[in-house]
């Protein structure tokens, strides 16, 4: 087993990985950028070293610097987490050259699965159902001709795509020229590769993915599916396991398809094979995520398997210690991603200082978090600040418990997606399990707009009493600067500033 592991990441996922190291008795090394000196992962690790200025490309993406730290500290392995260098084949190759183990898949699999068209070819060779479309990148004319042949609507996608970038739903030929232009430009700036391909659009698709573990000898197991259809900007916000659509038979077929794709790609480590599912429960290969996923904890809660520890053991060369028949999904788990975003303002980023934090607890509740009271959420990185993961004996208990835990979860100073999650957990369609990837943008928004507030009078009464108390005791020093009463002049100044965009 490894003696010392460097965690090349930050925030909640860095803490998650450091926790696994501590449980396994592995000395852990954190790295941090200039704005992260006070971050939680720095405090949690056994050792911590600076790697450069705030912008990610000068710190968390700085391969030379991270390798240098790993060598100086005497690390025998590096875990990249998700994001940053997790799916960077150059980094995996550098680790290998330097004699440091990259805790993840082989670099060849990162390259082949990173190209969506090569991944589609691989899946087809493995005999997995693939969404109808092209297996090669296309020219503009090629796209036009192929789309006409397939029939609209179609999905236009970037070959190097990910995170919803360079992706367009095109409903008619009139929209195609501008869609190609925008998708190419987005793909060029995001991935430095503007090649595109086409897929048939699956109506009301649900996103269902399969977690796999494969050891270096190629022995693999599937840990069951995760349903990740609640998305905003093509990014997941709520995940659950199991999916209400998947029964044991379908699970087995999807799991075996996922393992065949992994075998064809020469994959080992933890990984996720993503599928789209139509309303008739037909599933189609979408892509392979060659990394630990944000949502891995829901699978951990229903299977009892610590995916991070298994990933580390596989990287160290250990054979898989779990047999397929020993993998059982028990109960139901739900994850809510806590983003520093304003759900009432189109999920606009909301970085800043967390000046109040109350975490939920009690039965079945797990909180993976990267912040603490007075922590600063920098604007340079991903807006995720933590995750609430809840287990219940069935879906109903899991939802009720999630709702209860969310009501205990208070983050002040920055806006978060907590109130959004609370609303979803009360949404009748979500409760029925009746939703697809368009849920937030279509039905949810409409239902929310029509909703009456429930505690308006209590809220207003308390705010009024609060102001009354402040005004009656203006000289009393409030514990925090924020509680102080404000003069009408100051208020007026603020009002002026508030008149943004008034002409």
């Amino acid at each position: 087993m490894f003696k010392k592991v460097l965690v090349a990441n930050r925030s909640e996922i860095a803490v998650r990985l450091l926790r696994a190291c501590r449980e396994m008795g592995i000395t852990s090394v954190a790295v941090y950028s200039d704005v992260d000196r006070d971050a939680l992962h720095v405090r949690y690790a056994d050792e911590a070293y600076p790697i450069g200025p705030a912008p990610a490309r000068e710190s968390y993406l700085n391969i030379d610097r991270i390798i240098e730290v790993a060598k100086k500290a005497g690390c025998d392995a590096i875990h990249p987490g998700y994001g940053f260098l997790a799916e960077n084949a150059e980094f995996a190759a550098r680790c290998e050259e330097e004699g440091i183990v990259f805790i993840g898949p082989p670099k060849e699999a990162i390259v082949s699965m990173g190209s969506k068209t090569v991944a589609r070819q691989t899946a087809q060779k493995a005999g997995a159902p693939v969404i109808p479309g092209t297996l090669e990148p296309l020219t503009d004319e090629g796209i036009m001709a192929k789309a006409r042949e397939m029939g609209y609507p179609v999905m236009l996608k970037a070959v190097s795509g990910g995170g919803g970038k360079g992706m367009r739903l095109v409903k008619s030929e009139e929209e195609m020229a501008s869609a190609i232009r925008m998708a190419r430009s987005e793909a060029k700036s995001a991935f430095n590769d503007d090649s595109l391909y086409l897929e048939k659009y699956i109506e009301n698709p649900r996103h269902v993915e399969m977690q796999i573990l494969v050891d270096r000898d190629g022995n693999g197991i599937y840990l069951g599916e995760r349903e990740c259809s609640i998305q905003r900007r093509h990014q997941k916000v709520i995940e659950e396991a199991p999916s209400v659509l998947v029964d044991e038979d379908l699970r087995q077929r999807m799991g075996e398809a996922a393992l065949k794709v992994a075998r064809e790609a020469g994959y080992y480590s933890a990984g996720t094979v993503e599928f789209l599912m139509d309303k008739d429960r037909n599933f189609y290969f979408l892509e392979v995520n060659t990394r630990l996923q944000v949502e891995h904890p829901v699978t951990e809660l229903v299977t009892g398997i610590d995916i991070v520890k298994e990933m580390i053991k596989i990287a160290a060369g250990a054979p898989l210690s779990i047999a397929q028949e020993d993998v059982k999904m028990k109960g139901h788990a739900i994850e809510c991603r806590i983003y520093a975003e304003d759900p009432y303002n189109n999920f606009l980023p909301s970085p800043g200082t967390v000046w109040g934090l109350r975490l939920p607890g009690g039965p079945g509740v797990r909180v993976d978090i990267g912040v603490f009271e007075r922590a600063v959420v920098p604007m340079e990185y991903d807006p995720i600040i933590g995750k609430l993961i809840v287990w219940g004996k069935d879906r109903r208990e899991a939802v009720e418990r999630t709702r209860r835990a969310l009501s205990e979860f208070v983050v002040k100073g920055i806006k978060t997606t907590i109130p959004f999650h609370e609303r979803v957990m009360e949404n009748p369609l979500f409760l029925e399990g009746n939703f697809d990837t368009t849920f937030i943008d279509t039905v949810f928004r409409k239902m929310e707009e029509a909703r009456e507030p429930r505690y308006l009078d209590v809220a207003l009464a308390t705010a009024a009493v609060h102001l009354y108390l402040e005004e009656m005791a203006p000289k009393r020093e409030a514990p925090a600067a924020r509680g102080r009463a404000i003069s009408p002049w100051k208020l007026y100044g603020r009002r002026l500033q508030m008149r943004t965009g008034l002409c």
Partner: protein
Amino acid sequence: MAYVANIAGVDGELKVEVKPLGGDLYQVVIDGERDLVVDVRRHGCCVYSVLNQGRSYEVDVDERPDGGYSVLVQGEHYHIDLVDEMKKKLLSILGEEMGAGTGEVTTAMPGKVVRVLVSEGDQVKKDQPLVILEAMKMENEFKAPCDGVVKSIKVKEGDTVEANAVLVVLEPSE
């Protein structure tokens, strides 16, 4: 004491009267008709335990940077602007003297200026993008709120700006 409240998502102003009944008890009358007696205990700067007809609520009242209150009750959030009735009168007089509307385009979020798309003196149309700001790996366009001329630009590419910073000042056209 009488206050005037504006609540995001609720039409019109609400009048709120607070009468202390001694101890922790207050009578609150909303719009002259909804009458509540609340037992209010304050914890720390801004967490309240509120009892109303035996029902218990945990309420967070936080001052927002723009001057209003952010109120959290049982997981529901309310944005409430609350002003003393007397002060409101004073403000409205002041407001008239100072003249309303400044044509300032400001940002609600901190971020980094990726691009400035206009120059001083440019004629701009309503909804024309003026500045692109990036925060947390996401780009956001700031658009002209109305037709006008760009009077001054307060930021340049590469600048880091705080929340509520002025980006561009427009001279609205008549």
